[in-house]
């Protein structure tokens, strides 16, 4: 029997509030299953379990804020107390907010593995108290619908909430039971706070630590992306909108592929030393309309196809916009990429998200005069920047890393 602890979702998180259980005592659970929803400064985060077994009992109350590391539930190992399992399960009081009984126990994304499987690579944890380190979820897998599905909410109410970008978990039900259309309308009528102050505090804490502890160095390089844009245009020309890819997905692939030969930019600096991550999980900065940003991970970005990365990106952006993403996504990135998009400015200087050691920035694409075979020609360019941790790498290697990204963008077909 092992306790399941409130995970740390980054250097800046000290406590979280349990808002919903997604599993009931007696439920079989597999590594990677979503077990609960925790409210943090960054919004509602779905948290996963890291072992196989059976949920034995709850230890934490819904609605109460508890420090990171607090036991939330007990988990029985496979086979443990199996005899009492059938007896115990029905006696457990039904928990108040979820409707787990109606849910099939294994989540679609869960690997139905009966026994704990050792991780292929022994992955160094980013921080000693962070059990939430990246159980790799390949972006190809269909991602589970927002856990709001387990709330008692009428279909009409759910639709309105989704349309309005409102998280159903945050809506109060007037009758104390199910959320009806009127409850959603009431929630929409309430004036919204101008910005999420908790989010601002979280960013302030992480970025202050970054600027205090990390000796950043900065490099900038302008890449010709004429070929890359042409490749994207050709790829998309025969495709319906839902299958089109964006330049942003291609740049993520270029960074991930380049990282394979530059391990000193991929990993975590903790307790005075750098631990390289064998897996490449590129975090992508996504800004939130209500203010702030998050940089959740696209897992195994280096081994995914361009279409996989695009599908993962699309899914992440959608879930981030409605405020539902996973603990492993939030804490799992091994490097971050931030892009200003087509309407931004030419160049950005990133701030490293600790304990990561590098951040790659893409400015907006710009038309410039260039040369092709000695002839003056219009070229499409983008300025790529690197901010990296001088405790781990030097500018010489950083420059080679940026050049490698450029090289991969010149051969987009291979991405």
């Amino acid at each position, binding site marked *: 029997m092992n306790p399941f602890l409130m995970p740390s979702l980054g250097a800046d998180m000290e406590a979280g509030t349990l808002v919903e259980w997604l599993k009931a005592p007696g439920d079989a659970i597999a590594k990677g299953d979503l077990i609960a929803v925790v409210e943090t400064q960054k919004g509602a985060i779905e948290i996963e379990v890291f072992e196989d077994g059976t949920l034995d009992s709850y230890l934490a109350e819904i609605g109460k804020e508890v420090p990171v590391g607090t036991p939330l539930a007990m988990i029985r190992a496979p086979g443990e107390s199996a005899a009492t399992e059938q007896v115990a399960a029905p006696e457990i009081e039904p928990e108040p907010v979820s409707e787990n009984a109606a849910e099939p126990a294994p989540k679609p994304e869960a690997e139905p593995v009966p026994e704990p499987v050792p991780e292929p690579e022994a992955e160094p944890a980013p921080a000693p108290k962070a059990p939430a380190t990246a159980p790799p979820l390949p972006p190809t897998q269909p991602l589970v619908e927002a856990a709001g599905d387990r709330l008692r909410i009428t279909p009409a109410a759910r639709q309105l909430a989704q*349309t*309005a*970008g409102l998280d159903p978990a945050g809506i109060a039900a007037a009758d104390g039971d199910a959320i009806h259309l009127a409850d959603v309308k009431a929630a929409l009528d309430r004036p919204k706070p101008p910005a999420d102050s908790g989010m601002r505090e979280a960013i302030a804490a992480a970025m202050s630590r970054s600027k205090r502890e990390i000796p950043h160095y900065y490099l900038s390089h302008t890449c010709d992306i004429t070929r890359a844009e042409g490749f994207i*245009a050709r790829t*998309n*020309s025969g495709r*319906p*909108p*839902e299958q*089109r890819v*964006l*330049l*942003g997905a291609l740049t993520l692939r270029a960074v991930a592929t380049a990282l394979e030969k530059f391990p000193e930019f991929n990993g975590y600096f903790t307790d005075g030393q750098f631990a390289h991550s064998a897996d490449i999980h590129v975090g992508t900065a996504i800004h939130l*309309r*209500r203010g702030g940003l998050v940089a959740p991970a696209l897992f195994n970005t280096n081994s995914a196809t361009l279409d996989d990365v695009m599908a993962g*990106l*699309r899914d992440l*952006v959608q879930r981030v916009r409605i405020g539902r993403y996973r603990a492993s996504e939030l804490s799992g990135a091994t490097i971050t990429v931030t892009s200003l*998009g*087509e*309407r931004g400015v030419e160049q950005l200087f990133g701030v490293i998200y600790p304990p990561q050691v590098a951040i790659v920035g893409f400015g907006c694409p710009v038309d410039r005069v260039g040369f092709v075979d000695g002839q003056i020609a219009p070229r499409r360019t983008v300025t790529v920047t690197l901010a990296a941790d001088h405790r781990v790498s030097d500018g010489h290697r950083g420059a080679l890393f940026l050049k490698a990204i450029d090289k991969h963008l010149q051969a987009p077909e291979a991405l």
Partner: protein
Amino acid sequence: MTPDEIEAALGEELGRIAPDIELSEIDRDTDLREEFDIDSMDFLTLVTALGQRLGVEIPEADYPNLDSFDAALAYLAERLG
């Protein structure tokens, strides 16, 4: 489909993507993405939604025709006309 219906559809789909922007407050002749503060992913979502709702597939090559709110209305009216 009447121009009013097209405008309602475009306004609604933009409202889903950018619920914090009031249609009445934007400049309908200037850059749509800047007016609604939408990025390329949001724009792709808009194109996808319009395609499904109006039954008109907007090729990527036509994106420049949707540069402003009014330009998008004119483009959609022509495609649906």
